[in-house]
């Protein structure tokens, strides 16, 4: 326990933007075939440093086959509400779940150049105390650390619905299931919230048999992946409304609420529309009557391609779908970044008017057909995927792997892990930095990135930006 609030906690998103910039990034290192243990790579992000853009430290765990994927902090700016009672937590531990093993690692990053495993929660304990499996998204909030899961109980994770469980924010003990009334929610993926307004939004990917061994084409074409988003009374732990985006909108993934808690809207990315292979972004908002609404505000078209250039999965379509697999919103709620993993593009939309997004910038890199090279001339495996924005909104980082088995289906001849960075222009637009290209050690792919001191998908702010 410290005497003052952690200096990386900020009352408002605006204050977080003005804070000192990030010096380090933490990025997942995953061994796609489980032949090596997974780890966390520490990347030097200080442009004045001699080792800028290099992996300067790695923590490799002891177990194999965990499949590190998403991860998050033990504490964030949400601690600055008296309601949490935890103003003096330190942002010190990364909570890193193994999405395949259901093991959770608590990693002490107090010294970014000397990471240590602080605690390991074994899968059996998670199964027993929560009835869930395949832990995924981490958020720190009022009742502790919230962890979304993709699987229920049983060997294949289909015994009961998946959901969210809560961990103690100091001891990392598992407290138990979050939900008291889940309503129609029977699949899970991401979740986030607005703390002062006391609502939470969650999304749906699919159940473990639908993703662990690769995408199941029959399920996708018969619209059996998730296509609903759920609105919750956060503290009552109750599903208050479910919006079906339409069954053709397969895989509703990332939930990105506006960072300013005064606003009652946000975004959700949909991987693919099975009627036309488009990728889509929905804007969701609460109307004047207090009812939640959602509307498709961005569509991204597939690109025609010769069957010869396509993997088996896509040959019949003679087109490459954009595959919107990750989105991220800058702290000023101005730019929404959209990763189009299939066509190899990162889009930047001006979402100042959330109902009318405007394409403001585009970077082409990788892609199933285009396979665009990095400006430094090097290859970029797969396509732009997990994206993270610096707090000040000036730098956008991304990696390239989606999920081990899916990478192999969509990019059967590709291999490698890369992390790149683009610089954002004064008036929008963004361009890759030629000198920033992190090539991961052989045998490792990369996934989520977390920035030292918090980033645009970790911190929840309890006070409006003024």
């Amino acid at each position: 326990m410290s005497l003052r609030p952690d200096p990386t906690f900020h009352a408002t998103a605006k204050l977080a933007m003005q804070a000192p910039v990030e010096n380090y990034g933490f990025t997942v290192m995953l061994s796609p075939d489980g032949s090596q243990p997974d780890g966390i790579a520490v990347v030097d992000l200080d442009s004045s440093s001699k080792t800028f853009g290099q992996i300067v430290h790695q923590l490799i765990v002891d177990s194999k086959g965990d499949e590190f994927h998403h991860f998050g902090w033990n504490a964030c700016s949400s601690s600055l509400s008296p309601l949490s009672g935890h103003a003096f937590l330190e942002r010190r531990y990364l909570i890193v779940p193994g999405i395949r093993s259901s093991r959770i690692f608590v990693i002490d990053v107090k010294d970014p150049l000397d990471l240590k495993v602080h605690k390991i929660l074994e899968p059996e304990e998670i199964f027993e105390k929560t009835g869930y499996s395949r832990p995924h998204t981490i958020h720190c909030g009022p009742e502790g650390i919230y962890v979304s899961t993709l699987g229920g109980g049983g060997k294949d994770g289909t015994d009961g619905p998946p959901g969210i469980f809560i961990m103690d924010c100091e001891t990392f003990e598992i407290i138990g299931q979050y939900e008291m009334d889940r309503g129609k929610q029977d699949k899970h993926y991401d979740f986030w919230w607005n703390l002062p307004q006391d609502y939470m939004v969650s999304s749906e990917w699919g159940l473990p048999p639908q993703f662990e061994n690769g995408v199941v084409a029959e399920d996708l074409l018969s619209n059996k992946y998730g296509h609903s988003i759920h609105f919750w009374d956060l503290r009552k732990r109750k599903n208050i409304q479910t919006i079906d985006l339409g069954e053709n909108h397969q895989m509703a993934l990332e939930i990105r609420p506006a960072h300013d808690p005064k606003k009652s809207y946000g975004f959700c990315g949909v991987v693919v529309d099975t009627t036309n292979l488009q990728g889509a972004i929905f804007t969701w908002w609460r109307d004047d009557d207090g009812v939640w609404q959602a509307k498709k505000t961005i569509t991204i078209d597939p690109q025609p391609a010769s069957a010869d250039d396509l993997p088996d999965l896509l040959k019949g379509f003679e087109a490459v779908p954009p595959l919107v697999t990750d989105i991220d919103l800058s702290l000023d709620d101005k730019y929404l970044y959209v990763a189009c993993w299939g066509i190899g593009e990162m889009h930047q939309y001006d979402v100042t008017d959330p109902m009318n997004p405007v394409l403001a910038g585009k970077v082409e890199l990788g892609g199933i057909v285009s396979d665009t090279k990095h400006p430094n001339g090097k290859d970029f495996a797969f396509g732009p995927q997990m994206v993270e924005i610096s707090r000040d909104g000036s730098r956008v980082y991304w990696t390239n792997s989606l999920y081990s088995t899916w990478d192999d289906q969509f990019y059967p001849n590709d291999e490698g892990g890369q992390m790149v960075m683009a610089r954002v222009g004064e008036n929008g637009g963004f361009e890759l930095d030629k000198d920033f290209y992190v090539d991961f050690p052989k045998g490792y792919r990369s996934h989520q990135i977390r920035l030292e001191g918090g980033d645009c998908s970790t911190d929840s702010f309890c006070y409006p930006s003024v």
Partner: protein
Amino acid sequence: MELTTEAALWWAVIFSGVYHGINPGMGWPLAVSAGLMNGKRSSLLVALGLLALGHLIAMLAILLPFSLMSALFIWEKELRIGAGVIVVLMGIYLLINRRHPKFLARVHPAKLGLWSFLAAMAHGAGLMLVPIYLGICGIDANDTGHQAVQSLMAGRLSNAVIVALAHTAAMTVAGGVLATIIYFWLGLKFLSKTWFNLDIVWALSLVIVGGLGIYGAYTH
């Protein structure tokens, strides 16, 4: 001598109010948040009012039972010692158990009165006033030693209400001043600058106040 002691005790009521009030953990940032969320100054005032109401009820919930006991029982000294021991024990408990009560996080963010009441109860804010209050009653007892129980009780009850009101008023003014300065002039950047971890100081304050209460009972 008596007058100075009485004045000191009333100052202690006010001081403890200021001490509770300036601690962000007791709620004033929520008033800033309410004002900013609704874009209205009146929301800031309403929030301060709700926080004050919850705190006042928590003070009364603790003081009134002691006030009844002090009026009914002849064991004035024993009551003061007992109360002192309870306050010391609460302080020691908070020193050992440094966890914050989880149920507070389940309260809806708009229910500030309820939250303020529960937070004050959970942290023994009312208990801190008990030895001070009983000290004031003890001084009065010298002047009114032969009063009928009925009028004594009325006097004790009104004392309890005045102590709770004075303490809550001091708390609300202190928190309100900080909230207003941050809201209108300094901005939320100063929120974290005003926030100190008082957990240990708080627990020790309970031990000290309880200890002084016991000491006062013996020397009275």
